[in-house]
């Protein structure tokens, strides 16, 4: 479903060449919940950006849902991102001038749904995260946990195959972090594949599978749920 083979990413300036990913290999199957951990600067976020088609890469191959995405133009990449991937960011990345309804609406408009379909999806996804009653509120009127729930609703409204989460609980206190984590687990249980980058080992342990990244490479794989999901183990 998501397959990276020998993926390389090099950042170059006039003076410095930084190898963010070196021969990065990973295979994530449908319905998986993968936590990606590693020290700062190990390449976690670069991996997430490439996986989410936010950045291009310099070598290797990457197949998303069976499609080679190496040479897609901006329009195709944007379309693929919009249709197949939902993003959850550490700092929520809600648009402050838009109310919750309009925030969740953003990716749906890019998808080209009609207004009735968008409305149905927005209400349904906000309902799922328990914020349907507050859809006319602005993000600034919500707590951090609630804002992240809105971001999750936004990510799910388009029914993506993948959910990519970048430190989704990084800006939340423990109680809120657990609540968000419970929500992610229930989303995964419903069939959505999740890849989560985190520093938090305790959160990572709640995923089905742990990937440890060091120096731009996958250095360790730990399947916490390998018995029930044997197809997830291959790297």
């Amino acid at each position, binding site marked *: 479903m998501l397959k990276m083979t020998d993926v390389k990413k090099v950042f170059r300036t006039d003076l410095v060449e930084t190898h963010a990913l070196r021969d990065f290999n990973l295979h994530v199957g449908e319905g998986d919940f993968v936590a990606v951990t590693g020290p700062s600067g190990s390449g976690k976020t670069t991996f997430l950006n490439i996986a*989410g088609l936010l950045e291009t890469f310099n070598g290797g191959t990457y197949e998303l849902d069976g499609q080679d995405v190496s040479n897609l133009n901006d329009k195709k990449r944007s379309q693929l991102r919009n249709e197949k991937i939902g993003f959850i960011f*550490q*700092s929520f990345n809600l648009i402050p001038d838009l109310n919750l309804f309009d925030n969740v609406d953003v990716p749906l408009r*890019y998808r080209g749904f009609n207004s009735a379909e968008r409305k149905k999806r927005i209400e349904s996804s906000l309902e799922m995260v328990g914020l349907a009653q507050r859809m006319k509120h602005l993000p600034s009127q919500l707590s951090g946990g609630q804002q992240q729930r809105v971001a999750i609703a936004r990510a799910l409204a388009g029914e993506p195959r993948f959910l990519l989460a970048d430190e989704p609980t990084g800006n939340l206190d423990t109680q809120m972090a657990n609540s968000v984590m419970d929500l992610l687990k229930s989303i995964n249980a419903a069939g959505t594949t999740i890849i989560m980058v985190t520093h938090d080992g305790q959160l990572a342990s709640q995923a089905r599978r742990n990937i440890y990244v060091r120096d731009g490479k996958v250095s360790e794989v730990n399947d916490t749920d390998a018995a029930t999901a044997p197809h997830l183990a291959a790297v």
Partner: protein
Amino acid sequence: MSNTQTSPAINWEIGPIFRAMLRNKVGAILIALQIAVTMTIIVNSVYIIVERNKEMQRNSGIDNENSFFLTSIGFAENFNVPVTVAEDMNTLRALPGIVDAIQINAVPNSGSGWSMGLKTQSGAEYDAVGTAVYMVDEHGINALDLEIIAGENFAPTDIGLRVVGQVDWPNKTILTKAMAENLFPDIPYQSVVGKTVYINDIDPMIVVGIIDKLQAPWVGWNNLENAMLSPERMDFKGSRYFIRTEPGQRDRVMKQVEELLANSNKGRLIKGMRSVEEARERSYRGHTAMIKILTTVMIILTIVTALGIVGLASFSVNQRKKQIGTRRALGASQSAIVRYFMLENFLISSIGVILGAVLTVGLNIILVNTFGLDRIDWFYIPIGMLVLWLVGQGAVFGPARKAANIPPALATRTV
């Protein structure tokens, strides 16, 4: 959830953009106001410029390109004006390159001349119609390049001699068509021939001819098209001569005439030799200056407005980098980001131009009431709106492209 996807879709975000603008409105309002003021000034300025240009293009009725005039001032004690004028006219009319020449009291569009009032009934109690007076002999029609469209020219025997201080008038006149229609609005101009009009309240003049067009000396005068010819030569020390040349001969003839007249009689001065074109240009100098000033103001205002839009859009892009990166991450293509900023500017500009349309009409009403300008033609307003829309779209395009180049990966960075 169903998977209903309709049109592949241009993502018009009018509603969210408008709602977001309402929550963050100071910059948008300032730009909209700037656009409104710019449109108000530009549209009214363009209208004034077009009107002034039209005035400058008006047909004076005479052959502007090939005519010139000069003043002959006698200073010698024995200087005989009628004799000198007669000799000069004979000389000038015989000179190769000259079509005709006359003594005249004033030159159309030159800025100085005579005016009188004509009436259709004798008596001080009746209203007069103002008219410019041109004193000419029977060569006047040919020298001024006029066309008699009804009646006839003066006969040589009609021509009198006006002396300084004389108050009575000849008993014949030729009127412009406009003057004839002003005096006798209820009859065709052809029927005005043979009618009697009154000058100086009570002095009768019979209209012997109608000419198609001849403007007054004063380009800003309301009665510019009203003119009459009076069959007279003048016994004045200062005599103005009007000379029409063959096409392309004017400049050569001007030099020749100046020399010829100066040498033919040492008891006078030749001065003020000027082409009709130059005289018209001097008369319309105010118009020209106003056009230049208004054009400069329009250009500066347009640039300032465009820079304002560029500034606000650039500021907005810088402030919303993270948001733009997020939109890109959520599926916005580069063209969708460009479209977002163009649409946002279009909405701001729309508010500005609608307000501008109202202000334009308001300013025009003030100009009409204060300076007597004509009411603005309606089509200037939609054209002005379109221009300001285009200025806005052109100005925002650069910052919008800059926004589109913000990478989606910015969404995962801490900015």
